[in-house]
């Protein structure tokens, strides 16, 4: 169990609901991941389509907590209005706050993010900001009232893993009381394990599971990786060293002769 936003969660794996081959595979993957939190979005209803209703029915059948996002917003104003609509639509005050600053790598806009976070916190939202691993941005978000941070591992959908482990470690050390959820850029379970090993509290991912050849099996793989990573962090890793040190006792090595 771990605690985020006054809630006890029994899984350190948060999962997205997008890009699965079908709503049924999404359901099975969420179950196999053991995820307690699932991200969703709000979008315009497509003309003529009963937009996303199969997906929505499949998701409602699961006993999960929803984390709506403000994906695609490019200004604090857009993100705030989107969050307000999401709060009413999904009946939750949790919001994954995304304010995109650059369309090339979907990098968060730290200025818009802080501005929107301040306003949404004042409105009673629990803000989960999708941010970079920049320490000062993290500190500003906490000062704005965020009680959790979601630094990226790598740009969304790139599957490159943790591009800046040093930055994440620094965030961990400087903000020890703030839950850190590495969000975006993870590709394989070992990336998730690494995030947990270095002290992050959880990971949020979507594409790595949804676009795997077998999303359900990959969801299970990520569940195990997150468990392993957290256990390793709690166990305390050995220090890195530059020089080799034999693990087998040297004393009593056969054939060893004292030099004449």
């Amino acid at each position, binding site marked *: 169990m771990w605690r985020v936003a006054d809630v006890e969660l029994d899984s350190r794996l948060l999962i*997205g*609901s*997008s*890009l*699965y081959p079908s709503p049924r595979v*999404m359901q099975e993957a969420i179950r196999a991941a053991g995820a307690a939190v699932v*991200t*969703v*979005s*709000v*979008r*315009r*209803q497509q*003309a003529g389509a*009963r*937009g*996303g209703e199969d*997906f*929505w029915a499949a*998701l409602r059948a699961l006993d999960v907590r929803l984390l*709506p*996002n403000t*994906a695609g917003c490019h200004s604090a*104003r*857009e993100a705030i*209005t989107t969050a*307000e*609509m*999401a709060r*009413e*639509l*999904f009946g939750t005050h949790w919001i994954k706050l995304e304010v995109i600053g650059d369309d090339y790598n979907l990098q968060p806009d730290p200025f818009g993010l802080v501005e929107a976070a301040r306003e949404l916190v004042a409105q009673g939202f629990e803000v989960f900001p999708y941010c970079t691993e920049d320490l000062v941005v993290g500190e500003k978000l906490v000062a704005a009232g965020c009680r959790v941070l979601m630094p990226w591992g790598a740009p*969304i959908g790139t599957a490159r893993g943790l591009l800046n482990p040093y930055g994440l470690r620094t965030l961990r050390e400087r903000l020890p009381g703030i839950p850190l959820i590495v969000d*975006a850029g993870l590709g394989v379970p070992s990336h998730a394990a690494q995030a947990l090993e270095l002290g992050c509290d959880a990971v949020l991912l*979507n*594409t790595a599971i949804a676009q795997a050849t077998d999303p359900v099996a990959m969801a299970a793989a990520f569940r195990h990786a997150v468990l392993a990573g957290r256990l390793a962090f709690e166990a305390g890793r050995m220090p890195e060293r530059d020089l080799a040190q034999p693990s087998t006792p040297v004393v009593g090595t056969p054939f060893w002769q004292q030099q004449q």
Partner: protein
Amino acid sequence: MNEAQIQVICNGAPRTLPGARTLAELLPALTDACDFAVAVNEEFVPKSAYGALRLADGDRIELVVPMEGG
């Protein structure tokens, strides 16, 4: 254009609607979704305000539904 009508933009597309009507009265013409939320001119409109908000010519309406997300 008939004076009794207004031109609005709903989800990016122009729509002609009867004028002097509230959002609550016009919604059935705009969506058949059960679960949705609305913003008008980039401002969120809570459900409790649908009955009082009179749509005006040129209003920009966003009408959103639950969708998958990452």
